[in-house]
């Protein structure tokens, strides 16, 4: 199960000399098991902060986050995370990166290796099994990062603009692959992005956030049939609606 409930979460960042910004202001929301939710909003709206709080890397000042009715207070293997920056351990080969999580939870290396092959195949990088990260392209690095996160068999996958640094073509391919992985594995995905196009293509639900203080402005049920067509009329209409809303938000 991967049901995430955010309840009245606030987070304030204080700089050294008393200036503080309210990154999240009393945010509440729910994500159902198996749902694909995209967070979108102007930069500085706290979408990454919210994701980090759900991951346990950051703590809220007020409010709680629950995963299947258990309070989250620290990072854990039940929540995988893919970062925007390339986060593969450069001193480990692809396969060693993937088995890192399982090994940390005490699974024997031999067993972990057998499992890891499965995830390597899932992202289609079998022939790069023993390569080091410096030998991979950006897209391949993020594929491995996804495989590494999945190897812990999390119920929720948190993704913080994972394709932000990739070129448009690679980005489209990876979005497609991510959807296939999501459908095969039945997990909840929370995905932060600044690309409206990406959100409309991927999400069941799009959470539109407003900036300073970060609040949820609107939750949009996408409701487009899958597989989706990026250029269909419905997709375009929805894209326009979100873009307008974002522009209004940025002017404020």
């Amino acid at each position, binding site marked *: 199960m991967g049901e995430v409930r955010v309840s009245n979460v606030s987070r304030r960042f204080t700089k050294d000399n008393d200036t503080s910004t309210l990154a999240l202001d009393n945010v509440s929301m729910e994500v159902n098991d198996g749902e694909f939710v995209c967070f979108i909003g102007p930069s500085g709206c706290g979408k990454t902060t919210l994701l980090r709080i759900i991951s346990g890397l950051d703590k809220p000042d007020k409010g709680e986050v629950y995963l299947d009715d258990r309070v989250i207070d620290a990072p854990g293997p039940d929540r995988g995370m893919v970062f925007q920056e390339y986060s593969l351990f*450069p001193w480990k080969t692809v396969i060693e990166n993937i088995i890192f*999580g399982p090994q*940390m939870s005490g699974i024997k290396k031999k067993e972990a290796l057998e499992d890891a092959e499965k995830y390597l195949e899932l992202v289609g990088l079998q022939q790069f099994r023993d390569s080091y990260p410096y030998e991979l392209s950006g897209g391949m690095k993020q594929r491995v990062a996804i495989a590494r996160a999945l190897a812990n068999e999390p119920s929720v996958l948190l993704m913080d603009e994972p394709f932000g640094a990739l070129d448009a073509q690679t980005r489209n391919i990876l979005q497609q692959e991510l959807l296939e992985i999501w459908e095969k594995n039945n997990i909840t995905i929370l995905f932060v992005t600044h690309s409206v196009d990406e959100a409309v293509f991927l999400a069941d639900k799009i959470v539109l956030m407003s900036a300073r203080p970060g609040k949820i402005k609107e939750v949009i049920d996408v409701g487009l049939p899958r597989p989706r067509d990026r250029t269909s009329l419905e997709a375009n209409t929805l894209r326009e609606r979100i873009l307008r809303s974002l522009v209004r938000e940025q002017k404020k």
Partner: protein
Amino acid sequence: MVKKHLQKLSGKSVEIVSICSAIILWQLIAVYVVQNKFYLPSFTDVTFAFVDILSRDAKLDLLGLDYQLPVLLVDLIYSLMHFWIGMLSALAIGIPVGMIMGWFQTIDRIVDPLIEIIRPIPPLAWIPFAIIWIGLNPLAAGFLIFIGAVFPIIINTFTGFKNVSRVYVEAAKVLGCNTDRELIRYVALPYALPSIAAGIRIAMGVGWMCLVAAEMFGVSRNGLGYKIWHHYYLHNMEFVLVYMLLLGFLGLFIDRVLRYYIDGKLLKWRKGVVI
């Protein structure tokens, strides 16, 4: 086979010409300009002295051992012993101290001022205390080498740990690696390894330089550094030069072996990064 070696040599022709000309120049200056073996022994003097030393024997009298060995070998054994006493203790203390300082900020603030005060004191200034505290024995020589070697190791380990990117630590945390001990062992240490290795290389260089001084105040009757002093008293300057050159070549050799090992074995993941 021979042809292959010759080809390899011809690729290094500039370097070979450079070394040969230096030797010829040295010989000419020594024989025709200086004309005094005491001020500048010539290349041939030094070569003969070297051959002479090779034929001499000495007694290895160490830890109850009693062997008759070539004198050079005995000197080498003593020097390497002094060197490794110092290096190993510098590694054993420097790496953990640097790690803890790099990881825990409070400890850094406690230890750093002390280190910054002690570090600029030249290792040789410790000689009197080395003698008083430890006495005239190989451990005292090791102590001086330790003083020279430990600071580069601490500082490079510290820097390596300080620079661990946050994203690797966070990635490890979300993958279930949570305690300080695990994070140090599985993330910070491998990440800092290139920096630590660079520190060890610097430390080896400094330690090797301290060796001569460490052997000069009479910690043993053998050792490459001791022999420089010994032959100076006898005014055998060509022998002094033999030992000087030996120290140079050995230092170079140690550095090369270390570099080969570090780049080839430890840091495969850092191709193209020169340390």
